[in-house]
């Protein structure tokens, strides 16, 4: 699944390859700590196979992993679960890639990378411009046996970013993500009671013992959701490790950092429920009222986060009247990735018709409850323009992106010599320019 035209051909009459039927897990090698899958295997399927063995991939998928495939992740890149270990392509060891002429290229060793220049890295995040991945070998790690969860409220963006960055620099959390006030309010509207009950049971099951399950379950129910009323920015963190005393100590250290930067501890229901339900139904690909939804994102070093945030908010302020008139609203998801980088992901909501893609992706029971809006080209054009202006802001600040596809300006961001090299590689593996033409700007 893409929202950056990752697989939309520039002209009619293309052949679309759907690797969804190539979804086998070919080998779980517990001795060498690697796993090999066909590219159409979903992150959800992989996690279900690895979890009973106490294993996971180094980075183990995106929240959309119920549909999103390992191959899609390797080509488009993504980040969420295991973000301390990097984006999903950081988990890759090797690929088998079908090139334009139908030959199969192996990118190298299936246990070590790089052996010489990084050919696996060359095909990672290529957005399908260089070939089609057939198989993927990933690094395995032991899944943690002890977890600690924390949530904090922050009064403003400055406090939020300074705390998220300080925690990331210490490498304390396996996942660290947050919501701005608008997105948080949207989340509160979205979740239904029945969904909560199902998620709650999964969370209780994940606690290890019946006693702990009952205790944690009771805490979540008692907390309800009122703890998120009037919370401006929220940050949610998970510590994953081997010993409860160690992850609890790490969470104490996180709390000290959060409090120092103006944060206030709140109930930790959100990270606890999410870790136990890592790949929920993708109902959040539309707004809570059935509006259309689309994100745009940028990765930045800690030093440029606040400037990016302020410029994006200034853009929204300058367009406030038009956004309000057209029913366009915007929130943001924020996350830390490894020790040096954070993600800013503004998301737009606007009243517009759902397409077949949305209707098939949502749970039917959820779809049935939604409003259906008529097609709305005017609001959509506002979103399209604002999204492009945010890409410009990110470009000014030297941001990087996942899912480059046909949306982010890779050539403009590249050293001209590096771009020439990339074009030469494209020419070598796809001399007629037939493989996903236009993707990456190639």
């Amino acid at each position, binding site marked *: *699944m893409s929202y950056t035209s990752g697989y939309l051909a520039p002209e009619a009459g293309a*052949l679309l390859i759907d*690797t969804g039927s190539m979804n086998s897990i070919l080998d779980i090698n517990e001795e060498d700590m690697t796993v090999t899958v066909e590219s159409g295997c979903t992150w959800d399927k992989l996690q279900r196979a690895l979890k009973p063995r106490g294993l996971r991939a180094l980075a183990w998928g995106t929240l959309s992993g119920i549909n999103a495939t390992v191959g899609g992740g390797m080509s488009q890149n993504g980040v969420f679960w295991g973000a301390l270990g990097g984006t999903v392509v950081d988990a890759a060891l090797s690929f088998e890639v079908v090139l334009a002429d139908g030959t199969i290229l192996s990118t190298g060793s299936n246990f070590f990378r790089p052996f010489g220049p990084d050919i696996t890295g060359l095909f990672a995040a290529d957005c399908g411009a260089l070939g089609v991945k057939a198989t993927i070998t990933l690094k395995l790690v032991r899944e943690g046996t002890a977890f600690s969860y924390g949530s904090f409220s922050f009064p403003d963006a400055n406090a939020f970013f300074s705390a998220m960055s300080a925690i990331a620099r210490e490498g304390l959390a396996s996942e660290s993500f947050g919501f701005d006030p608008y997105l948080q309010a949207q989340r509160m509207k979205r979740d239904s009671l029945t969904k909560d009950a199902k998620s709650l049971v999964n969370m209780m099951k994940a606690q290890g013992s019946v006693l702990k399950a009952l205790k944690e379950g009771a805490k979540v129910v008692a907390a309800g959701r009122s703890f998120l009323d009037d919370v401006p920015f929220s940050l949610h963190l998970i510590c994953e490790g081997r010993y409860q005393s160690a992850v609890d100590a790490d969470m104490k250290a996180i709390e000290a950092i959060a409090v120092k930067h103006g944060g206030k501890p709140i109930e930790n229901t959100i990270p606890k429920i999410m870790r136990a339900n890592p790949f929920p139904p993708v109902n959040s690909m539309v707004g809570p009222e059935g509006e259309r939804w689309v994100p745009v994102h940028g990765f930045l070093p800690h030093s440029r986060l606040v400037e990016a945030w302020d410029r994006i908010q200034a853009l929204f302020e300058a367009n406030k009247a038009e956004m309000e008139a057209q029913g366009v609203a915007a929130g943001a998801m924020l996350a830390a990735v490894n020790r040096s980088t954070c993600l800013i992901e503004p998301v737009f909501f606007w009243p517009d018709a759902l397409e077949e893609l949305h209707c098939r992706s949502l749970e039917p029971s959820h779809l049935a409850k939604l409003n259906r809006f008529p097609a709305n080209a005017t609001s959509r054009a506002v979103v399209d323009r604002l999204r492009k202006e945010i890409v410009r802001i990110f470009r000014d600040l030297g941001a990087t992106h996942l899912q480059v596809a046909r949306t982010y300006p890779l050539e403009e961001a590249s050293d001209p010599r590096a771009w020439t090299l990339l074009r030469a590689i494209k020419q070598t593996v796809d001399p007629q320019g037939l493989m996903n033409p236009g993707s990456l700007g190639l």
Partner: protein
Amino acid sequence: MEILAPQDDLALAAITEAVGAEALITDAAERAYHSQDVFSTGPTVLAVFRPTDKDMLARGIAAATQAGWPSSRGVAA
């Protein structure tokens, strides 16, 4: 079903011979569905190729590119 242009007919025949008709979806509604992503709708694809293994994937791509057919990578739809 739309009427295919003659060159499309040839390309479709070549790939069908390489991978078998069961691996190809040519139904108009399905082609339209596979020509959308979460934000945009693109030009309609001519067919959707659903290989069941690595060798079929390779055979299909070889047949398509020999027929001069732009292939657009699709992830799980």
